């Protein structure tokens, strides 16, 4: 039972927790990249991007389960792709606003200093503003990612064999109450373990990456080190 919850039912692997994590990482990374582009666009063109901002606000009002249902009926989408696109769109709706608000709060003094140092605007955005934004918004992003990891459970309506679906299938065919309870408690523990690991592990990796980035930049730009 534990093996099935971890890697999926026989004949339907990868599944279970492994598939939940694959969906989580793929959609989270895609949404982060799209969110960065959105934030840059909205901060660079605050008035022109108003319709885009309004559309994103509307998107946040739609439940993930409905997005999953909607994308599942796009004719050229296979079930797995529909789930991935729905999760990405849902995550983008939240991540994009977090990044936009932090990027908009980038200190004017830092921007001025970069300009006086003769940095090109591409370098300014890529080496100073985006790392600063990502670093400052980290806590808010992790809160959303915890939610995203749990929300992969919405894929249950497509029958994609991730952890919630596997737990549902196993609990429905359980022979007795003990087996049923054990299945659901084990699934709950797996989710709990994964979210706690995410809360502990992601800031650790991010800290390491950021220090590497800072060391790399310190040879080329002292300003990056100062403001990051």
């Amino acid at each position, binding site marked *: 039972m534990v093996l099935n919850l971890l890697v999926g039912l026989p004949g339907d692997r990868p599944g279970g927790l492994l598939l939940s994590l694959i969906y989580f990482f793929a959609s989270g990374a895609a949404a982060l990249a799209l969110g960065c582009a959105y934030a840059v666009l909205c901060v660079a063109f605050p008035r022109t991007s108003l319709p885009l901002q309004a559309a994103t606000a*509307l998107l*946040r*009002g*739609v*439940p*993930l*389960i*409905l997005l999953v*249902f*909607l994308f599942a*009926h796009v004719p050229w989408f296979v079930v797995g792709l529909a789930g991935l696109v729905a999760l990405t769109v849902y995550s983008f709706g939240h991540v994009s606003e977090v990044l936009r608000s932090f990027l908009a709060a980038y200190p004017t003094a830092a921007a001025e200093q970069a300009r006086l140092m003769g940095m090109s605007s591409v370098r300014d955005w890529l080496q100073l503003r985006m790392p600063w934004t990502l670093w400052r918004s980290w806590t808010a992003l992790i809160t959303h990612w*915890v*939610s995203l990891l*749990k*929300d*992969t*459970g*919405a894929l*249950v*309506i497509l029958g994609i064999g991730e952890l*919630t679906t596997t*737990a*549902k299938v196993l*609990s*429905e065919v359980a022979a007795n*109450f003990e087996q*049923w309870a054990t299945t*659901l408690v084990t*699934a*709950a523990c797996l*989710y*709990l373990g994964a*979210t*706690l690991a995410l809360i502990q592990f992601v800031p650790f990796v991010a800290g390491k990456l950021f220090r590497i980035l800072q060391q790399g930049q310190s040879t080329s730009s002292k300003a990056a080190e100062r403001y990051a």
Partner: protein
Amino acid sequence: MVSGAELWVGIAGSLVLWVLSGTVAILLALILAAGSLSPNRPVRLLARASVNLTRGIPTSLFVIAAGVATMHLVSASDLPIVFPGTTAAFQPLAWAIMLALALGSAGHLAEIFRAARAALGSPRLEQAAVMGLSPMRHAVLIARECIAIALPPTGARLIHHLHNTAFAALFPVAELFGAIEGQASTTFRVFHFALLGCAIYAVLSGLTWLLFRLLEAALAPPVAQQARARLPAWS
């Protein structure tokens, strides 16, 4: 034939689920937040563990557990019939799902309430403590001060909570997502109904946001209201 009545029943079902489970979630969250601030260590640890447990487990899994357990274990009950469109036989199931939804949000709301109290800062909390008020009046005073901080994230969480009511569609409980799904598969006009569902949820979410903004304006602490009144109209 497209049944508009079915959609209205779905909307009513979602709203009843949302209001009941939201109320239970807020009550549970207040208990958990109070417990996590308790000077008694075992109570504090128990409350913290409960908060982490409810925040770490997906609401979908809570709903599935409640649904499957009720279908296996409960045959009849005397619970009142309050969920519109759900047959009398499945009312206990709807009650169980309502509790599962409440449990799914209780931990998040408890953290919001705890953070709002912490945001007041120790000088203000100490000031309230030395005023010599009764425990009840002290709690009311702190709650009044916290409201302005806690309302925006509470509104955001309750919008998420509204979206989570859609998980009830996994069982025979009438609510909006189930109605949309049912209409879409009956008429084969999937995009029409999916977009209609998106619009209805967006409107309901917008109304929730508006309600909380109004509450924020009405329930802000007197000091904040006075400060706002002193601001010139053009600021």
